[in-house]
């Protein structure tokens, strides 16, 4: 939107906001424990109830963060989905960067020495 291209980064702008609305709304619902339970009990039914499209449903099934982002997911709401599976931010960071968690942690630690 501002004429900047930041490698490996998609700003959550109008395009993503429109594209991801159903997915993000579902993830927002995971603030409530009862909804997390309902999702786990019937993932497909829960996704249908929120009107996810096939791209979004596939990304949810795969628990693939890059695919979820591509499908319009917003990091703040996706974190609630990740929380269901006990994934922390470093698990997610490792998954997206193709590193092991230890490698990802080492990468973070390396910034301290700069």
């Amino acid at each position, binding site marked *: 939107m501002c004429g900047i291209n930041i490698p490996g980064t998609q700003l959550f702008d109008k395009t993503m906001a429109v594209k991801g609305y159903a997915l993000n709304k579902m993830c927002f619902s995971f603030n409530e424990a009862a909804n997390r339970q309902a999702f786990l009990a019937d993932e497909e039914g829960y996704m249908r109830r929120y009107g996810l499209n096939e791209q979004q449903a596939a990304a949810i099934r795969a628990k693939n963060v890059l695919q979820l982002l591509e499908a319009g997911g917003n990091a703040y709401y996706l974190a609630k989905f990740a929380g269901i599976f006990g994934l922390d931010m470093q698990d997610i960071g490792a998954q*997206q960067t193709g590193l092991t968690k230890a490698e990802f942690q080492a990468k973070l630690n390396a910034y301290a020495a700069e």
Partner: protein
Amino acid sequence: MAHIVGAVTTSHVPAIGKAIAKGLQSEPYWKPFFDGFINVREWLKDARPDVVVVLYNDHGLNFFLDKMPTFAVGAAPTYTNADEGWGIPTIPAFSGEQALSWHLIEHLVEQEFDLTTCQEMLVDHAFTLPMALLWPEQNWPVKVVPVCINTVQFPLPSAKRCWKLGEQIGQAVRAWDSDARVMFLGTGGLSHQLEGERAGFINKDFDLAFMDSLTTNPQWATQWNSAELVEKAGTQGIELLMWLATRAALGDGAREVHRNYHIPISNTASGVMVMEPAA
């Protein structure tokens, strides 16, 4: 007139909540972070605030994209924390300082800020964890006023606009007919990025320059638009907007009383600063 005692700015990631819940403050991983707050709490003993205006960003607890405000101000009698989806323990409720909330709202709308006013409001980890770092016993000796800035969905308010918001918050507090001692607490940042192939990005040089700028050249960061700030600080590093608005609330001059900077906690470069208005 109310007295401004100073400002604290700090990072706020959820992992801090887990560390508190598990009592990991003295573990080697966490100690360099938590120790940064010892001096802050010493300073608080002298500062003795009665009211804290908390500038923070909601992470999808109180607001969703159906109604996403650029700037929201709380005007509730109490603010409760709630489950954010990870099942970390919630933090005790906070008492609102409604008189200051409404004074701020009237002043800011008069000054052409198009607020969303919230007479009910859940506050998330970005609000609760910094409070818990300042008052670990969690029986709050202060009343609060939440001010929430959108960092979830673009377009975000520009750094310039956030600076102006902070300036007017400061002016309103200075004009508030009360003998209360008021502190500002700005939470977010510093550099980090949770999403995309660039996840794990940190920019130490920028963070240190930004912290320096708050006392030497406080509008320094307003030269960039939001996308440029994301490029420098990461997609969540943009939360430095709260630091900027908080600094603006202190007024023209400010001096640094304390700082700590540590890499990393979770995926984040963490910082804390205490500033006082220039005498």
